[in-house]
């Protein structure tokens, strides 16, 4: 099988690969609710321009994505789709949970139809607080994620573990 | 295959001749294999893919024979257009993914028999008729201009007829495929 799992990859190469993952993150556009607009602003507004960071907001299909940002309310009806689309992304993949709704249910913590946090469905790498977080807060989350990817332990990740900083 | 070709093509003319033969052999084998797959594979789209191989092989053979223009035409019309037409046709007829249901007909044995017999007859005829006659060594690639001169000279009538034929085919096909 792969070189990475067997741990045969030399260290410099690992960090090179980490760096390239760090600077090339294709983000899957999936807006769920209000936060999606702020995500859209972060991705689409010239003022924030996430492309500067190497985050490319091109793919509309999970198959080409590295990062998915769950921005908004996760409802029980949506959960299967979220899980499936997350599954359909190719490894290595990262998840940002944006906004109180995705973190914890937020304003709808007591609602009958809202899931209390996207982390009950998929593993989350970075939580961005806010309701909605301003676009720069999302950028901060992305920068944080990039820092962590840069130092990430590939072996763990290749096994499908959540992001581990070595 | 390229290695052999390249090695052979390095020197003077005569080895090129050998290289041509080698190339012919390889391409021919590929063509025959693909042709067989065309008529045996269960999946129609695969059959089309194999057909592409046969057609490309034929184009390569044309190149070997110095008929550049025909070869490019083969690529353009057959691969670029006719196969696309086939693919559209296949998709229009709901090509089943694994087309077991569309395998052989009952008379496939008869078909096999016919073609084997036919093959025997043909081979006999060919060997008998052309023996070891060779394609001239100093074969020159045909220039497009010559083809053109021939079309617009000797075969002018045929050329115009082709246009009529194409028109007729287009009209016919539109009539047939348009239900209302």
């Amino acid at each position: 099988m792969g070189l990475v799992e067997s741990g045969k990859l030399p260290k410099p190469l690992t960090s090179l690969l980490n760096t390239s993952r760090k600077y090339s993150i294709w983000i899957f556009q999936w807006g769920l609710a209000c936060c999606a607009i702020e995500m859209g602003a972060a991705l689409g507004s010239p003022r924030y321009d996430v492309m500067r960071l190497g985050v490319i907001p091109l793919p509309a299909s999970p198959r080409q994505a590295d990062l998915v940002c769950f921005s908004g309310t996760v409802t029980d009806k949506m959960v299967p789709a979220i899980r499936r689309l997350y599954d359909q992304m190719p490894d290595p993949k990262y998840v940002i949970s944006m906004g109180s709704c995705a973190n914890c249910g937020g304003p709808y913590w007591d609602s009958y139809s809202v899931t209390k946090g996207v982390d009950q469905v998929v593993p989350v790498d970075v939580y961005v607080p806010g309701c909605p977080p301003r676009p720069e807060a999302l950028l901060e989350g992305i920068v944080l994620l990039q820092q962590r990817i840069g130092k990430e332990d590939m072996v763990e990740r290749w096994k499908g573990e959540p992001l581990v900083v070595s | 295959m390229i290695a052999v070709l390249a090695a052979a093509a390095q020197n003077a003319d005569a080895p090129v001749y050998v290289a041509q033969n080698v190339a012919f052999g390889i391409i021919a084998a590929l063509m025959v294999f693909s042709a067989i797959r065309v008529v045996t594979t269960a999946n129609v789209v695969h059959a089309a893919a194999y057909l592409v191989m046969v057609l490309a092989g034929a184009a390569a053979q044309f190149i070997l024979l110095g008929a550049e223009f025909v070869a490019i035409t083969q690529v353009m019309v057959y691969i670029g257009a006719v196969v696309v037409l086939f693919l559209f046709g296949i998709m229009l007829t709901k090509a089943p993914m694994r087309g077991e249901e569309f395998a052989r007909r009952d008379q496939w044995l008869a078909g096999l028999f016919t073609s084997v017999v036919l093959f025997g007859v043909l081979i006999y005829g060919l060997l008998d008729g052309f023996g070891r006659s060779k394609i001239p060594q100093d074969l020159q690639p045909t220039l497009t201009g010559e083809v053109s001169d021939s079309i617009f000279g000797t075969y002018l009538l045929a050329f115009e007829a082709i246009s009529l034929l194409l028109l007729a085919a287009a009209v016919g096909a539109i009539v047939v495929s348009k239900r209302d």
Partner: protein
Amino acid sequence: MSADILALSWDSLDNLWAQSALKSVGILAAVLLPAGTFVYLFLFKMVSFMQSRLGPMETGPYGSLQLLAEVGKFLQKEDIIPERADRLLFKAAPYLVVSTVLLVYIVVPFGPDMTFISGAMTGGIFFAVAIASVSTLGVIVAGWASANKYSLMGGLRAGGQLVAYELPLILAVVGVVIQAGTMDMQQIVHAQAGGSIFGVDLIGNPYVLTQFLGFIIFMIAVQAELAQTPFDMPIAESELVTGYMTEYTGLRFLLFFIGEFASAGAFAALGATLFLGGWAVPAAWTDLNNNLFNLLGPIIMVAKMCILGGLIFFVRFTFPRLREDQLQKFAWVILIPLSLANILATTILKVAF
């Protein structure tokens, strides 16, 4: 690579292996460089500036290493083949698309001696359009093999569109062939450099002037062949996700991606050669067979390609997209008759003068 050295030693290099190796390196450079340049220069930077933002900035100075990061990333992406897909064709389709693009470059001259072929292959532009038409197959097959509805519809749309716009493309080229009287690209370049307009040969005769209609038709058709907006129905992301590429992941997707931009480069190269005078400058200025042009030629060529490429992406990010039926109608009702008329006009002028 230094074209100078290459050119000097070209004849003495009788060793086929060395030649082939050099040519292979050359073609890779010819394909990947324009593709990379186009992606970085146009997709990342020019478009960003058009949208009053900056594009990649963090990866290397001004984001110049972004492309390397992309490749490195895609190398590590998992390769998913959907279980319902047709594995064989699913895998084969990207090869088909990319390699046909590669072959188009063969006939493009980059200098008086900077060609991949000798003059014996006379197919020239005819060869190029024939090969380019094969990539249609790749797209349709990719759409079909993914067993996905978006892909299938995207593939079909792409097929329908590519065939519809191939005709105006080819017919626009015919005008040039009539004017030059040859299909060989090198000779077309020389014909333009050495030509004259109304007896004035100061600027040669770049066919963009005499074949302006042809040029416009050619560029429109190229836009459609590349499936760029306003003709990007096959990958219309607001309807079909990413069309025929929807199911492709990782490297295979990257191949399509490279293929897209490499073919943008290829068509830009064809356009530059056919209409802008290729690697040459007007012959009145200098002696074209000067060895210098083996060095300058590629540079001039790339510059001209960038002009056309810039135009392509400029249009792409300005316009909305047409609907599939409008697109077909445009091709059949306007472009093809127009290009036929262009041929006839060129014929009459050619014969009359």
